């Protein structure tokens, strides 16, 4: 498997960047961190829009930058698609011409992505003859994404593509991005400071803070790592990725991930459709005996793996291992931890009060 390897350094006086990371060549990697953490600098360096000193970037066996050897491939010769924060369509060209701008500058034998399929995927077929000024913000961003995809890139780079949009437009675009994620095998690096976007879209995460790397790894693992779980601005949680395995007559939808099955109240989703669920740690409660006569849909046996301080005083973050090696975070009161005498190894039952389908 070919990898993406990067090492970026910069010194702008009050801001120092020094990160090194390795990424898989599949799936979506989120570059996550607060503003000023160096996410966008890294992305621009990957694209070749900025040339940072002492830096290195390699995709597969192609070296795009290696300052030790004086190698720097300019942005226009890198096989990338780049989606900027604002759509940045060329105002003097209509939608069709904007889409063709990148396509025309790509050798015929390199055109792997089919224009029709991208236009359909992003739902912009009706807009082709319009000028950018006649599009809504969401439409513009979809055209910009399509324009980047038509370059048949080896790597798709997205710089907070949703942050300039309001909530309604975000909800309009997110499904398209998820569709991209399912349909395309192009690796994506996605800059974001919004935990909800990251949890919905990313497979991998690189967390940055003040120009330093906090951690990098598979999102599912990082999210349940107590050291990093609380860095997600909206609370610790566990991510389940599974497929719809049953639509039962008693109006329960079942989602299976490996050997674990989650029961949800009925959702109109096709069988075998891949979905992501998020379980907030604060929605998980623990019992030392098997609960019976209980209205809760999802109750799993497991054992305590770790006990760490929670978001605030009096709260404890308990990491559980469910029967099949799946981890689950629960946030309970320190009072309950003492009363139940929980410690690593204690067998428990986890009650999941609610599951958010992403």
């Amino acid at each position: 498997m070919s990898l993406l390897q990067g090492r970026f350094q910069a010194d702008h006086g009050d801001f120092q960047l020094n990160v090194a990371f390795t990424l898989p060549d599949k799936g979506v990697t989120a570059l996550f961190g607060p503003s000023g953490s160096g996410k966008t600098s890294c992305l621009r360096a990957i694209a070749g829009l900025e040339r940072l000193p002492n830096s290195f970037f390699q995709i597969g066996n192609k070296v795009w930058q290696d300052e030790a050897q004086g190698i720097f491939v300019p942005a226009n010769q890198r096989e990338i698609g780049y989606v900027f924060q604002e759509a940045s369509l060329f105002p003097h060209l209509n939608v069709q011409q904007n889409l063709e701008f990148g396509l025309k500058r790509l050798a015929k034998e390199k055109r792997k992505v089919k224009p029709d399929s991208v236009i359909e995927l992003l739902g912009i077929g009706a807009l082709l003859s319009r000028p950018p000024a006649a599009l809504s913000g969401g439409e513009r961003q979809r055209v910009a994404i399509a324009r980047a995809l038509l370059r048949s890139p080896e790597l798709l780079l997205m710089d907070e593509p949703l942050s300039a949009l309001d909530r309604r437009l975000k909800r309009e675009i997110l499904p398209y991005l998820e569709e991209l994620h399912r349909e395309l095998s192009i690796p994506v690096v996605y800059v974001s400071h919004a935990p909800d976007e990251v949890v919905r879209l990313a497979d991998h995460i690189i967390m940055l803070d003040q120009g330093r790397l906090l951690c990098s790894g598979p999102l599912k693992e990082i999210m349940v790592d107590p050291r990093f779980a609380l860095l997600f601005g909206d609370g610790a949680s566990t991510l389940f990725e599974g497929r719809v395995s049953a639509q039962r007559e008693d109006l329960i939808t079942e989602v299976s991930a490996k050997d674990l099955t989650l029961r949800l109240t009925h959702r109109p989703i096709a069988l075998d459709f891949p979905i992501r669920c998020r379980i907030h740690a604060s929605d998980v409660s623990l019992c030392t005996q098997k609960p019976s006569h209980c209205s809760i849909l999802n109750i799993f046996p497991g054992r305590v793996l770790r006990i760490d301080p929670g978001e605030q005083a009096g709260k404890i973050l308990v990491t559980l291992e469910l029967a099949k090696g799946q981890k689950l975070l629960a946030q309970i009161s320190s009072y309950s931890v003492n009363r139940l005498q929980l410690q690593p190894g204690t067998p428990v039952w986890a009650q999941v009060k609610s599951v958010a389908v992403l």
Partner: protein
Amino acid sequence: MFETSFSVVWLTLKLALIVTVILLLVATPLAWWLSQTQSRYKPVISALFAVPLVLPPTVLGFYLLLLMGPNGPIGQLSEALGLGSLPFSFTGIAIACAVHSFPFVIQPLQNSFEAIGKRPLEVAATLGASSWDCFCNVVIPLARPGFITAMVMGFCHAIGEFGVVLMIGGNIPGKTRVLSVEIYNHVEAMEYAQAHWLAGGMMAFSFLALLLIYLVNHKAAQRSMA
């Protein structure tokens, strides 16, 4: 009378056209460089380029006359190249006019290049466009109002040129006698009717040229960057 007026108008248009073409060729790369550079000499160079804007045409004409004279460097260069003597020649007034009109051409170009910003250039690069490709297919179309302003301003300024032409070219019919000089001659000779024809024509022409600039800029403002 009509024939001499025609030759004067023709000479003036020819001068303005040639000056505009020369200026676009020279000012476009310089304006682009100024709009992109972070050189610390930028203010010095910008100020130098703007000098013809504030100098009296007689001062500019005086120094150009010295430079183009048989002992001046430009004069010696043109002799060496076999172009002959520049003062009192059409080439001479074309060069002088170009120098005097230079700021009127470079400034709108530089402003419109700067207004484009970095983003469209970066977008073009990520879409595979080289710098030259990007300049031709992104910068020039986006800077079109700037180019039109620069052309019209350069052209009109050259048409109305008086002081510098008089200093360099004198008043030779069919060679260096341009409109503004001819109007001066008519007024000197108390031929007010002829002066009216030429002066009125210039007023109308200038108004129409400026109207064109404003119409183009108005249209461009309605088509903002998405």
